[in-house]
């Protein structure tokens, strides 16, 4: 299985099952359309040469030979042999990450919030310290031999329960020593309550900070409103700038959401750069079509065009070695994660769980409030997660999703978001189509950017051709 595409003047071919990526000249790119037919005896090379008569015959023959050599070397048209390998049968995932909904309350009322302005459709409440401690204890005791554990402070707005966040980080450090674990703490905040103390604490203790902002002032302030109905841009931007200025080299993301009211979102990403932010992301709103800001099928052409426009801008930055980064255009072609990780995906319901202020467990933060997916409560004696539900999530990988089997993005997206599949199609095995289309485009963009960067490096140092065959 291969996928080929042209973007920003670069012809690219991907070997989906092997992971190889190639840059082709135009003649080889066109020959690739006929290669399998020639190889399988359905057409003769001569017949194809006549069809592609705009190219010299000896060049076409040479292009055909190079494609054949790639296939013989296992770099094109490789088979997908992973499904029957032992690791697929022997997978025994253990919990290694928790999302702590530290506050089911919020000091903003963003129109598109999936958490329904922080309370997830329930009552407004904050997680007591005791519940948070029980959550961390549950994690260290149920993580098997895993050493690296993750805890994300989420909500709602976690800084509305800042004292508990601080106490839990310190408690986690105690547990680390006792259980020989390594906690990686992260936080997602809307920025409103950031002050000197919060900035200092986040920059000291949080391995990653996700800072919500939608981009240009009018775009942000149309969606991200304070409780008095005013825009939040002027309140939060200076606070983010202060946090990042003091953050050094630690990880952070300025993270925006685009809607059908801001389909020119590349301008918002550029605005992040104007504000001095380096690590950025911009995500499509996920919402049912009854909402006026929801993304619809008819918006896809504009969105895909916008991603490509952003990718061309971004590729130019990368060729100039600009440190600015856009989350979805970062792809590690030299290795990336192992194939086991790529097949199993996000780990929701098995490796990753979300805990509410009341101690309820859900497969992930997107399932909170959906009683059918409640997996138990931390205050139950001998808490045992429902095996059927865990098994359902464990088996929700790309080989059990029909739409994924023939998708060129399957080893990069791992089958998409279970919660979105359930929301839009009523089945965690049926991926959300609009999300798939955007994912495929983002992957093409990311590979183009990386190809341009690698080709540019080769031009600068032609003696270092080790990357190429």
């Amino acid at each position: 299985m291969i996928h080929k595409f042209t973007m920003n003047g670069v012809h690219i071919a991907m070997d989906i099952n092997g992971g190889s990526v190639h840059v082709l000249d135009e003649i080889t790119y066109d020959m690739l359309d006929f290669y399998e037919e020639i190889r399988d005896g359905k057409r003769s090379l001569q017949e194809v040469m006549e069809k592609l008569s705009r190219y010299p015959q000896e060049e076409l023959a040479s292009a055909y030979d190079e494609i054949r050599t790639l296939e013989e070397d296992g770099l094109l048209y490789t088979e997908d042999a992973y499904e029957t390998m032992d690791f697929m049968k022997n997978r025994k995932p253990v919990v290694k990450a928790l999302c702590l909904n530290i506050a089911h309350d919020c000091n903003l009322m963003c129109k598109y919030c999936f958490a329904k302005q922080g309370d997830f459709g329930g009552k407004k409440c904050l997680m007591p310290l005791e519940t948070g401690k029980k959550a961390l204890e549950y994690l260290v005791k149920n993580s098997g031999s895993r050493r690296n554990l993750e805890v994300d402070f989420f909500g709602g707005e976690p800084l509305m329960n800042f004292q508990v966040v601080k106490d839990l980080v310190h408690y986690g450090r105690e547990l680390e020593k006792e259980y020989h674990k390594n906690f990686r703490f992260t936080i997602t905040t809307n920025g409103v309550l950031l002050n000197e103390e919060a900035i200092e604490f986040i920059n000291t203790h949080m391995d990653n900070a996700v800072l919500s902002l939608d981009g240009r002032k009018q775009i942000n302030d149309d969606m991200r409103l304070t409780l008095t109905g005013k825009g939040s841009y002027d309140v939060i931007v200076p606070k983010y700038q202060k946090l990042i200025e003091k953050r050094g080299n630690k990880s952070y993301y300025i993270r925006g959401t685009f809607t059908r009211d801001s389909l020119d979102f590349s301008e918002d990403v550029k605005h992040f750069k104007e504000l001095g932010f380096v690590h950025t992301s911009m995500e499509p709103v996920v919402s049912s079509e009854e909402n006026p800001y929801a993304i619809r099928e008819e918006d896809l052409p504009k969105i895909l065009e916008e991603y490509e426009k952003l990718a061309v801008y971004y590729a130019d930055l990368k060729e100039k070695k600009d440190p600015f980064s856009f989350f979805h255009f970062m792809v590690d072609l030299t290795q990336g994660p192992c194939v086991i990780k790529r097949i199993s995906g996000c780990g929701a319901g098995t490796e990753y769980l979300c805990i509410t202020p009341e101690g309820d467990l859900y497969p992930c933060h997107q399932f909170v409030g959906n009683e059918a997916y409640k997996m138990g409560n931390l205050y139950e004696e001998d808490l045992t997660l429902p095996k059927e539900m865990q098994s359902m999530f464990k088996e929700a990988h790309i080989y059990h999703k029909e739409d994924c089997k023939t998708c060129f993005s399957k080893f990069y997206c791992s089958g998409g978001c279970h919660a979105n599949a359930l929301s839009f199609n009523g089945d965690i095995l049926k991926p959300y189509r609009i999300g798939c289309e955007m994912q495929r485009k983002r992957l093409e963009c990311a590979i183009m950017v990386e190809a341009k960067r690698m080709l540019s490096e080769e031009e600068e140092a032609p003696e270092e051709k080790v990357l190429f065959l």
Partner: protein
Amino acid sequence: KHIKTLTKSTLKKSVAKGGCGECQTSCKTSCTVANQECENL
């Protein structure tokens, strides 16, 4: 002369050394499968 290979068969190579589970979960912008690195490979 027609083809430049940017990367070779990274997936196949990862089967033998992969699967330790020590990497981050991948949804919450922190990492996706596509941009995550592995210490073992």
